[in-house]
């Protein structure tokens, strides 16, 4: 189903078809699809990589799930997992940054919003990174910036294809300008990687927005989006307040980005690994291709 149609469908159903809403969904065994409102057997959903078998709706995927899905079983070696954020600004809002970090760590089991390492994709060694939206909105502060930069440097030094899945609300406010500068830092690493002649594939998952979009995820050789991913720079509320108009229905969707030439393709999660393998077959420098 084309993404535009999917969105229309979602809209029709979202406010609640009373018949569907009343259907009780017991915890754990069944899950209700946010796309088509149909119940799905949880085990079936897991087996289908958290994509609704009925309507192709992509459920959120954690960083760990992405890495497991993309790399061959048992080949992923995580790197720099113990990097952990400091609190340079001693930031306090409605809660302290230190507390926000603790809550996010407990919730996700991660130290910060990205997992990086090396692994194999259908037998080919690659450098892989995946962001986790569940960790303070996938925001980029010192740790995300540092780990992404190290990953890109590793790929440059070891001549590895680079594959990064982004999912982020933007730069992390709680680290102020230190976060903003991570955009420059990761982009600088990408500039060096570009000269290595090795391929960089960027996957944009729901949502990829804010400052993060304006850095390493947009600097790849090939940019792929997952269906129904929200992708853009400025936040929709900010745009609406600025222009004082309603935004078009499909604004900043993956399809909107495809139409306007910002991404190469939209690929279902179910086809992602296969597509990346096919792309790498074309992109690997001569003499290296297997």
């Amino acid at each position: 189903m084309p993404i535009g149609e999917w969105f229309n469908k979602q809209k029709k159903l979202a406010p609640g078809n009373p018949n569907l809403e009343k259907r009780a969904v017991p915890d754990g065994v069944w899950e209700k699809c946010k796309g088509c409102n149909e119940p799905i057997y949880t085990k079936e959903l897991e087996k289908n990589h958290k994509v609704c078998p009925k309507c192709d709706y992509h459920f959120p995927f954690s960083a760990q799930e992405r890495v497991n899905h993309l790399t061959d079983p048992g080949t992923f070696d995580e790197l720099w997992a113990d990097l952990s954020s400091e609190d340079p600004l001693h930031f306090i809002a409605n809660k302290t940054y230190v507390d926000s970090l603790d809550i996010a760590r407990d919730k996700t089991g991660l130290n910060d919003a990205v997992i990086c390492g090396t692994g194999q994709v259908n037998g080919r060694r690659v450098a892989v990174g995946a962001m986790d939206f569940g960790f303070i909105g996938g925001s980029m502060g010192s740790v995300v910036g540092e780990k992404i930069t190290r990953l890109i440097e590793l790929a440059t030094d070891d001549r590895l294809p680079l594959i990064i899945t982004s999912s982020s609300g933007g730069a992390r406010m709680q680290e102020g300008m230190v976060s903003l500068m991570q955009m420059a830092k990761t982009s600088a690493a990408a500039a060096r990687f570009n000269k290595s002649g090795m391929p960089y594939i960027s996957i944009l998952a729901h949502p990829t927005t804010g400052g993060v979009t304006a850095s390493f995820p947009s600097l790849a050789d090939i940019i792929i989006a997952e269906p129904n991913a929200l992708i853009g720079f400025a936040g929709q509320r900010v745009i609406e307040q600025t222009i004082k108009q309603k935004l078009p229905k499909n604004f900043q969707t993956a399809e909107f980005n495809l139409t306007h030439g910002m991404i190469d393709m939209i690929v279902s999660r179910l086809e992602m690994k296969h597509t990346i393998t096919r792309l790498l077959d074309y992109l690997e420098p001569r003499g290296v291709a297997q």
Partner: protein
Amino acid sequence: MRRFAYDFEKPLVELETKLDELKQLESAEKQDIAFQIKYLEEQIQKLRLRTYSKLTPWQKVQLARHPDRPRTNDYIEAIFTDFIELHGDRIYRDDPAIIGGFARLGDTRAMVIGHQKGRNTKENVLRNFGMPHPEGYRKARRLMKLASKFQLPLITFVDTPGAYPGIEAEERGQAVAIAENLLELSALAVPVIVAVIGEGGSGGALAIGFGDRMIMLENAYYSVITPEGCASILWDGEGGADRAAEALWLTADKLFKLGIIDTIVKEPLGGAHHAPALVARDLKRELEKSLKELGRTDPAELVEKRYLRLRDIGFYSQESGVAKTLNLNALTGE
């Protein structure tokens, strides 16, 4: 004429207005009035000190946005000679929110790029309040490449509330336009000197806002998000902009502590618009100093040093001992 004034400046402006009125009074009792004028002048002097000598971060943000604050074109005119403005991104249009071109600083030929705000409503509509569209960033990138090709040092002036948040801006690729500038700037083989003169609004500022030397005016700000935006997200309500401005460490003194900027150029009491020529003179000195230092460095070394500088920005800890670059700056914020 009524002067523009923020709330915290209003008591001062009221006194100043009173003084003006007194001075204009034609009075028989000149003696009395002379005494009153003298008294009022003293009071004004005291109040001015009290108002401006301990500005809060939020008050600095307001001064950075002051409608009378000198703009990029004012500094270009005051600091450089023989400015030749260049236009257009060669793809879509010329974005008036960013200006740039060749200019001479003393004997040194340079490329200058800056965000351009307007001086009044009409100008601001034309300049889009200094908020660029993607074509503005693409023009900047074209000029960066020109600078590199002809070995001209690049001097940028940062003064934007942010990249424009609009439908067309997204359609034409705001994100990728900014990202490509970051990529270009990071590897540009000429000296890059940045002067943050007013608002440093997030990614829209960063796209021309990092380099080998980072100079910042005393009351300018540079931030990951506007204080208002931060407040609406993290404090769930309005009126938190002053707290957010405090929390975000967006002022020159705090950014110096963090190692993000290198030099602070002092402003007169009340802000740069109270003595634009003085500020321009001091900024010029800093630019000349930076140019002299960087001019001696080999281009490849410049790029390497710029990379290492970016590389070093970050505050994190690592349990295992295999850290490639365990950050030693982690305590400078204290």
